[in-house]
C-alpha cells in the first residue's frame, strides 16, 4: 500500500517540460494535410484506373468479337498461296487459320477481362 502511494505520488508529480503545444499541433496538422493530399491523389488514381479498365474491357471485347467473326469468313485453306515450297509450319498455320483466329479473339477477351478485374480490384 505504501509502495502504491509512493509510486502514485512520484508519477503524479512527473511533469516533464514538453515542447510547445501549439507547435506540436501545428506539426500534426501539417502532416494531416499531407495525408489528405496523398488520399486525394490515390482517389484520383483509382478513378483513372477504373475508367481505363472499362475502356480496356470494351476494346478487348470489340477486338475479340471482330477477330472471332473474321476467322469464320476466312477460307479453310489458302490454296492460292500454297505453291508447295512453304515450310510445314506455315502449312499447318494456313490449314488452321480459323481456329487460330478464334484463339486470338478469345485471348483478347480473356486478357481484357483479367486486366479489368485486376485494375478494379486495385486498392488505394
Amino acid at each position, binding site marked *: 500500500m*505504501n*509502495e*502504491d502511494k*509512493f*509510486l*502514485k505520488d*512520484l*508519477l*503524479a508529480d*512527473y*511533469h*516533464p*517540460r*514538453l*515542447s510547445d*503545444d501549439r507547435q*506540436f*499541433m501545428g*506539426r*500534426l*496538422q501539417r*502532416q*494531416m494535410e499531407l*495525408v*489528405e493530399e496523398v488520399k486525394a491523389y490515390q482517389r484520383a488514381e483509382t478513378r483513372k484506373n477504373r475508367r481505363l479498365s472499362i475502356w480496356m474491357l470494351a476494346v478487348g471485347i470489340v477486338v475479340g468479337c471482330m477477330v472471332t467473326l473474321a476467322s469464320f469468313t476466312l477460307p479453310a485453306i489458302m490454296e492460292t498461296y500454297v505453291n508447295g515450297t512453304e515450310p510445314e509450319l506455315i502449312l499447318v498455320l494456313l490449314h488452321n487459320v480459323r481456329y487460330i483466329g478464334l484463339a486470338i479473339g478469345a485471348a483478347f477477351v480473356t486478357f481484357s477481362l483479367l486486366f479489368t478485374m485486376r485494375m478494379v480490384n486495385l486498392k488505394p
Partner: protein
Amino acid sequence: MTREQFVNRVGQEQAALRRFLTALCCGNSAEADDIAQEALIKAYLRSEQYDERGKFPAWLMKTAYRVFIDSRRRQKNRAEQPIEKALTLQGSNGSDDTFRYEELHSALATLSETIRTSILLYYMQGYQIKEIAEITDSSESAIKKQLSRGREELKNLLGR
C-alpha cells in the same frame, strides 16, 4: 469522426499522451514527440473506424503503445542507441528535467518495456488493470504480475 472533431479531441489529450510517452521513453522528449506524431497520424487514418462508444484517450494510448513497441523493434533491429545511450539524447528543452527526473528516468530505463508501460498506465495515467490489458493486448493476470514486479524493482532502485 470529422477532421475538426479529431483535432479538437487530440488537442485535449495530447499533453497527457506526450507526458506518458516521455516517461515511457525515459525522458527522451524528442523521441516521445516523434512517436506521438506517428501515433496520432495512424489514429487519424483509422478515425473512421473509431467506435464513438469507446474511450478516446484509451484508444490513443493503444495506438501510441503499438507505435512505441514498433519503434523499439526497429531500433533493436538496427542495433543502435541502447537505452542508456538514449537517456543522454534529451530534447532541446529537457536539460532541467534531466536533473530533476534523472533518478526516475534511470529507474524506468531498467524496467522492461512491458512492465514500464503497465506501471505508467496504472500509476501515472490512472487506468484500471482491465483497461491496461486491453491497451497492451495482454491478459489481466499478466498485467498484475508486471505491476507487482515493477513495484518491487522500483522499490529496490529508488530505495523505498
